C-alpha cells in the first residue's frame, strides 16, 4: 500500500440525523469496497460496543480505511470516519469533522431534514468541509425523494437534484455514492516534509499497547521511533507503532504522512494525556503552532453514583477507573452521602453519556447502582466575593452567604411538524424557555429556537418532547453560557430527616411544583413502616409540600396448620426479601429505586 499519492486519498465522514441510516451506509461502503466479504460482515460493523448496537447509536468515533477502485481505473484510499451521533458528543463530532476533507450528508427520503441534520451540516461547513447530499431509504413506501431534494436545496442550499437516491439497507445505488466520494470530496493537502502536525480525534486504551491515538496527519510524517509531544497536555512519548484502520483491527504500517488518517501507539498509559482535539508534533522538530479548535472537554451533567451494596465501593472505583481509561470525558471523584454512604460524584457530557456509563457499569461490571438526581454546574457567588462551581447540591453554602447564583443556558433548536408547535412551545415555557424565533422549513415543518436552562432539559426533556409531538420533534442544543437566576435548593425530609441524596437545585418558581411531585412520588415508593412517615419538601427550612406514608398495613389473620408451614415460610421470605434493597435513613428504610424514580417526574 506504499506510495499512495495524496490525490488518491479521500478522508470523509457521514453525517445524518439519528436513524437516517448513517451506520448502514457506512457498512455498505465498507462492503462495496471489498475490504470484507458479505459473509464476514456483521450488521453495522462500525458500532463496536454492545450498547451502541442495542441503541442503534454511535458513541465513540470509529474509523476504517478501505480501498476503492473507481470508474477511472485508479485505486483510492477511503478513510471513513464515523462520528458520534448525539448532541452529548458534539465536541467529539467537531474534532472528527476536523479530521475530514468532506462529508456525505445522509437524509431520510421520508422524514427529510431534521434538527440534527442542520446542526451537523452547519458544523461541517464551519470546518470547511465539502458536503454532498445522499437521499436514503428510497425503498420506503413513504419515501418522497423529490420533495426531500427540494427541501435540501431550499433549506440548506446544497445542490441536490443529482444527489444519489439510494437504499443503504438494500444496497441500491450505493455505487453512485462511492463515485461521488471520489468526484466531490477533495483530496487532502499538506506538506509531507513539514514538521509533524497531527490532529487527535479519538483515542482508545488497549491493555497491551497502551493508548492508541486516532489522528489525522495534517503536515509532516510520523513513524516508529519518532519522539512525539502532545502540544496541549505536554505529554511526550516515543512512537512504538503506527498504522491504519482495518475493519475492527489495527494494521501496522511503516509511516503515516500528511493527508492520511491512522493511529499511533507510544506506550502511553492514560487517555487523559491524549485529549481529543490536541495536536501531536515531533518533539525534535516541532511545528510552529497547534491546530485550532482544541478545548478541554468539560462535564455538563453531574450526579452521584453509589453502589447499592456498600461493600462494592472498591469495585465501583475500579470499574470507573477502567472506563475512564477509554473515556477522557468521564469525570469522577469520591463523595460521601449520609443517606447513601460512600460513592462518587461523576461528571458527564450529557444525560445520554450518563446513561451509557451507568449501563456499562451495571452490565459489564455487574454493579448495582443508586443514582442521584443529575444536576449541572452552578456558579455560586458569595457575599465575600468567593465564587464556587457547584456540582453537588449538598455543598451549597448557607443562603445567607450567597450573593447570587448563575446557571448554564443552552440555545436549542427544535424541529417539529407545525401541528405540534403549540404543544412544544408550552413545554418550553414550562421549562423556563425564552423564545428566540421560529422558521418555517416548508409548509408543514418549523424550526423553533429557544434559550433553555440546561438544568431543565437534562433529564426528562427529551422524553417529554417526544411524547408531546408523538415522536416527531427533534432536538439539538449548544451550551451558550451562564446566566444569573433565582435558584434555590429543594430539600426532602423523610420522617423529619433531610435526605441529602434527594436534594437538588431548582428555579425558585418551580420549587413548589417540583417539591409537591417529589413528595407524591416518594409516597408511592416508600413502603409502610410501623409508624406514619411524613415526607416533606423544604426550601431554606420552610416546608412547601407534604405527604404521609401511612403506618404499616395490618396483616390478614391467616390460619397456619401443617400444610401451610412451607407456604408461610415462603411468604415471610418474600416479606424479608423486599427489605434487602433498602437504604436506612434514620429509622426509615427507603428503597433504592426511590432515589431514581424521582428523576422521572414528568410521567403524564
Amino acid at each position, binding site marked *: 500500500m506504499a506510495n499512495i499519492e495524496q490525490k488518491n486519498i479521500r478522508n470523509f465522514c457521514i453525517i445524518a440525523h439519528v436513524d437516517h441510516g448513517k451506520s448502514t451506509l457506512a457498512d455498505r461502503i465498507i462492503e462495496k469496497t471489498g475490504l470484507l466479504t458479505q459473509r464476514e460482515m456483521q450488521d453495522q460493523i462500525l458500532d463496536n460496543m454492545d450498547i451502541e448496537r442495542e441503541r442503534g447509536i454511535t458513541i465513540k468515533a470509529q474509523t476504517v480505511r478501505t480501498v476503492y477502485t473507481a470508474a477511472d481505473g485508479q485505486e483510492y484510499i477511503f478513510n471513513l470516519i464515523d462520528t458520534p451521533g448525539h448532541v452529548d458528543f458534539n465536541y467529539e463530532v467537531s474534532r472528527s469533522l476536523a479530521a475530514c476533507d468532506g462529508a456525505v450528508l445522509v437524509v431520510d427520503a421520508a422524514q427529510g431534514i431534521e434538527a440534527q441534520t442542520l446542526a451537523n451540516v452547519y458544523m461541517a461547513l464551519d470546518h470547511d468541509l465539502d458536503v454532498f447530499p445522499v437521499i436514503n431509504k428510497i425503498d420506503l413506501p413513504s419515501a418522497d425523494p423529490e420533495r426531500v431534494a427540494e427541501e435540501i436545496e431550499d433549506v440548506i442550499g446544497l445542490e441536490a437534484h443529482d444527489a444519489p437516491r439510494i437504499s443503504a439497507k438494500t444496497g441500491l445505488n450505493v455505487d453512485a455514492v462511492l463515485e461521488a466520494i471520489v468526484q466531490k470530496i477533495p483530496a487532502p493537502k499538506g506538506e509531507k516534509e513539514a514538521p509533524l502536525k497531527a490532529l487527535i480525534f479519538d483515542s482508545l486504551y488497549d491493555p497491551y499497547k497502551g493508548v492508541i491515538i486516532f489522528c489525522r496527519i495534517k503536515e509532516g510524517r510520523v513513524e516508529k521511533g519518532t519522539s512525539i509531544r502532545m502540544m496541549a497536555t505536554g505529554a511526550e512519548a516515543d512512537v512504538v507503532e503506527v498504522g491504519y484502520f482495518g475493519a475492527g483491527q489495527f494494521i501496522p504500517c511503516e509511516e503515516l504522512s500528511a493527508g492520511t488518517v491512522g493511529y499511533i501507539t507510544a506506550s502511553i498509559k492514560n487517555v487523559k494525556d491524549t485529549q481529543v482535539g490536541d495536536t501531536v508534533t515531533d518533539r525534535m522538530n516541532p511545528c510552529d503552532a497547534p491546530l485550532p479548535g482544541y478545548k478541554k472537554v468539560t462535564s455538563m451533567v453531574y450526579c452521584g453514583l453509589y453502589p447499592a451494596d456498600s461493600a462494592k465501593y472498591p469495585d465501583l472505583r475500579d470499574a470507573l477507573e477502567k472506563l475512564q481509561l477509554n473515556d477522557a470525558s468521564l469525570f469522577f471523584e469520591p463523595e460521601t452521602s449520609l443517606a447513601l454512604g460512600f460513592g462518587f460524584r461523576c461528571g458527564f457530557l450529557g444525560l445520554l453519556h450518563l446513561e451509557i456509563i451507568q449501563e456499562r457499569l451495571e452490565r459489564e461490571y455487574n454493579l448495582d447502582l443508586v443514582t442521584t438526581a443529575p444536576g449541572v454546574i452552578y456558579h455560586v457567588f458569595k457575599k465575600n466575593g468567593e465564587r464556587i462551581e457547584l456540582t453537588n447540591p449538598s455543598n451549597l453554602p448557607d443562603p445567607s452567604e450567597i450573593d447570587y447564583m448563575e446557571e448554564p443556558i443552552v440555545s436549542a433548536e427544535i424541529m417539529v411538524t407545525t401541528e405540534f408547535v403549540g404543544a412544544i412551545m408550552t413545554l418550553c415555557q414550562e421549562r423556563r424557555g425564552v423564545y428566540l424565533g421560529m422558521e418555517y422549513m416548508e409548509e408543514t415543518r418549523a424550526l423553533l429556537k429557544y434559550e433553555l436552562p440546561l438544568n431543565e432539559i437534562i433529564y426528562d426533556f427529551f422524553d417529554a418532547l417526544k411524547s408531546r409531538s408523538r415522536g416527531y420533534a427533534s432536538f439539538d442544543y449548544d451550551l451558550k453560557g451562564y446566566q444569573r437566576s433565582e435558584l434555590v435548593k429543594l430539600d426532602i425530609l423523610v420522617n423529619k430527616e433531610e435526605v441529602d441524596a434527594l436534594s437538588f437545585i431548582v428555579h425558585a418558581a418551580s420549587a413548589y411544583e417540583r417539591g409537591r411531585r417529589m413528595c407524591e412520588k416518594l409516597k408511592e415508593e416508600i413502603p409502610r413502616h*410501623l409508624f406514619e412517615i411524613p415526607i416533606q419538601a423544604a426550601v431554606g427550612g420552610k416546608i412547601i409540600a407534604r405527604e404521609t406514608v401511612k403506618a*404499616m*398495613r*395490618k*396483616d*390478614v*389473620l*391467616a*390460619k*397456619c*396448620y*401443617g*400444610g401451610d*408451614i*412451607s407456604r*408461610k*415460610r415462603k*411468604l*415471610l*421470605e418474600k*416479606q*424479608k426479601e423486599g427489605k434487602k434493597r433498602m437504604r436506612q435513613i434514620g429509622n426509615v428504610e427507603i428503597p433504592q429505586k426511590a432515589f431514581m424514580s424521582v428523576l422521572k417526574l414528568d410521567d403524564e
Partner: protein
Amino acid sequence: MDHKKSLELYIHIPFCAQKCLYCDFLSFEAEKRLQVEYMDQLRSEILSSGPWYEDCRVETIFIGGGTPSLLEPEQITLLMQAVKKSFSVAEGAEITIEANPGTRLSKKLPVYLAAGINRLSLGLQSANNEELKRLGRIHTFEDFLKGFQSARMAGFTNINVDLMSAIPGQSLESWKNTLKKVIMLKPEHISAYSLILEEGTAFGRHYLENGQGNGQAAAQGADPGQGDGAGLDPLSQWPDLLGEEEERQMYYLTRSLLEEAGYHSYEISNYARSGFTCRHNIGYWTGKEYLGIGLGASSYVNGRRFCNESDLDQYQKLDFSLDGLEQLHGEIHVQSRKEQMEEFMFLGLRMTEGISAAAFTREFGVHVDSIYGDVLRKLTEEGLLVRNGRYIALTQWGIDVSNYVLSEFLLETGSED
C-alpha cells in the same frame, strides 16, 4: 413411662360436595365410586406406613379435608380400624373429624363416636345465610344448628366451630351477630380467621385480578363485569372487600367477645374454653412431628418435611405393597438447624403464651438471645414483642403486623453458627 416418641396423624379426605369460592385446599367433587376407591387406597397407605413408626405413639389424629363427613360413615369406621391396627394410638388421644353441616350429620355422628372419634370440628363460617351463599357454602345456619344439636345429642363433648370474618360485604354488626349466636351454643373451641384471597380460587380470580390487595384493599370497588365468575352470581353483585381497618375491628371484636364469654385466645385465630385447646394444632406451632396420610398431605417427621403425591390418578396407581411409599413422598426436605430455629420462632410466636426461652435452649443447646438477641431487642423496643419471665410473646400490635415481626426471625445463611 414408655419411651415412645409422640406423633400426630393428619388424614386427608379430598372430596367435597361443592368447592367453596375462597377455598384453595386440595379438594374437589368426585363420584361415589372414586371416593370408595380412594378410601381403599388410603387404608393401604395407613397399613403400610404404620410399621415405619413402631417407635411412635400417636397422640392426636385429625381427619380433615375437603369434607370427611361427605363419605358414608362406615368409611370412617374402616379408616379408624386401619389406623388402630397399624399405629400405636395412645389412650386418650385427641381424635378430630371435620364435618360440614350440609352433609346430613345426624346419622353419621354416632358412628364417628363409636369409631373412637372424640372431637368434632364443624365448618360454619357465618351465621348469616346471605354470607354463606356468597362464600359458596352448601349449608345454611339452620343446617348448622341441627348438626350441632345432633352432635351434642350423640355425645360429642368437644366441638369446634370454624368461623370466617371479613367476608366481602360483611358488616361489623353481622360479624358480631355470628359470634353471639355461636357463643350461645357454647362450643368448646372456636377458630376464627379472616378471609384470605388465594390465587387460583374464584375469589382470588375476581378480587386479586381486579387489582384489590390480599383481603386488605380499601373498598374502592372491583371493576364489575370483568373477570371470571365461574358461573355463579353475576360478578357485578359481588360486594367489595373490606378495608384494612374494618377487618381489624372485626378481629378486636372477636377477641373481646370471646374472652368475655370465657374463651381463652391461645393462638392468633384460635379460642378455647379451659381444657379444650386443640392439641393437634398446637403440635404444628410447637414443632411436634406429624405424619400426613392421603392425597397431598404434608409431613414433618424425623426432621424431614415432605408432601404426598397430589394428583389423584397418580396416587391411586401407587402400589403400597411395593415401592408405593417411596413414590408417595416426592422431594424430601431435610430441615437445617437454621430452619428449625426459624420455625420454632415464627410458629411458636403464633401462640398467645409465646415461646419459652428455656424450651429454645433445650431444643437447640444455645440461648435464644445468642441467636436472636438483636432482633428481640429491636422488636421489643418497637412494641411488637413482650418478654415476661421466660416467655417471649407478640403484643396486640405485634399480632397486627405479624408478617413483619415473624419475617424478622428468618436468619441469613450461616448466621446460626
